[in-house]
């Protein structure tokens, strides 16, 4: 930025300068509090993530009442159970069946169910995913190494600022009698976005 940088001084990139300027102004005006900013970052780096969604899915697999509540109103079911944190947005759970596989996208930007999955992976935010999943979901699935029977239809759900989606994948066969915790270990992030399937019980490495 300046052309008189001293070699023994420090340097901030243009983008770092922009963010620091923004934060300083908003802090001085009382719009943001640096302590709160740190708490927000910590929350997203350590507290929320796909492990939360995996527990929700596992619960739905073992508890039919929770499952039907989840499909009726995911925000309410998850928040009221008191076990998975609160859901601050309107969340809809969509259930995979042998007849229908669900995939989630945000074609506008990157709306994503943060409270249950954390922040989205890079590919979710990329233009190729955002545009292609709508036009040709089956080939996107193939990119992710997933092939569905031709008899399984695919429905793509476009998220909005107000409505987010969580895919409830099908419980893998051969997991009868498994504990919730063990079942949750099979639930991958991608399986809750619809670009993947849960891990198979035999394929577990640990």
């Amino acid at each position, binding site marked *: 930025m300046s052309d008189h940088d*001293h070699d023994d*001084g420090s340097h*901030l990139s243009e983008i770092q300068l922009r963010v620091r*300027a923004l934060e300083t102004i908003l802090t001085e005006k009382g719009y943001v509090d640096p302590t709160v900013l740190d708490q*927000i*970052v910590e929350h997203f*780096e350590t507290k929320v993530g796909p492990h939360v969604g995996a527990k929700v899915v596992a619960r739905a697999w073992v508890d039919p009442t929770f499952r039907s509540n989840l499909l009726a109103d995911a925000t309410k079911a998850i928040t009221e159970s008191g076990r998975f944190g609160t859901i601050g947005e309107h969340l809809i759970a969509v259930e995979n069946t042998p007849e229908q596989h669900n995939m989630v996208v945000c074609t*506008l930007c990157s709306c994503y169910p943060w409270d249950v999955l954390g922040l989205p992976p890079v590919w979710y935010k990329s233009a190729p995913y955002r545009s292609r999943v709508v036009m040709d979901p089956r080939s996107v699935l193939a990119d992710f190494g997933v092939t569905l029977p031709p008899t399984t239809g695919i429905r793509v759900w476009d998220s909005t600022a107000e409505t987010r989606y969580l895919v409830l994948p099908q419980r893998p066969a051969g997991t009868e009698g498994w504990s919730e915790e063990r079942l949750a270990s099979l639930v991958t992030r991608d399986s809750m976005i619809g670009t993947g399937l849960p891990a198979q019980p035999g394929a577990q490495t640990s």
Partner: protein
Amino acid sequence: MTNETPSGTAREALDRIPAAERARTFQEPWEAQAFAITLALHQRGVFTWNEWATALGKEIKAAQARGDPDTGSTYYLHWLNAIERLVEHKGLTNAATLQRYREAWDRAADRTPHGDPIVLAPEDFAGGSTT
């Protein structure tokens, strides 16, 4: 710069990001700060989430129109553009003030020995040389 078009597969977009980076929530501290500022302002009711999504969507579209391959790795740059615009639009600050503070931070960095924390001081605003 390569001639990447937005037509690659989602997997290709993913494969361009080194594995270690993929696993992290934020690639750089500034991304986390820009993200947190936005959430904090929304929590304070400065804007609705719908307003935010519209602003971000607009920036992403504009970047694509400029030829950004939009593979997801420039996402927080769009994010920063959007929050700056929205904050200006809401009258919380203006472009001139943002620029004045950027220059002040630049001076603060210049006078801070490498490795020390950079702290903004009143002198960083005074007598700003306009080169």
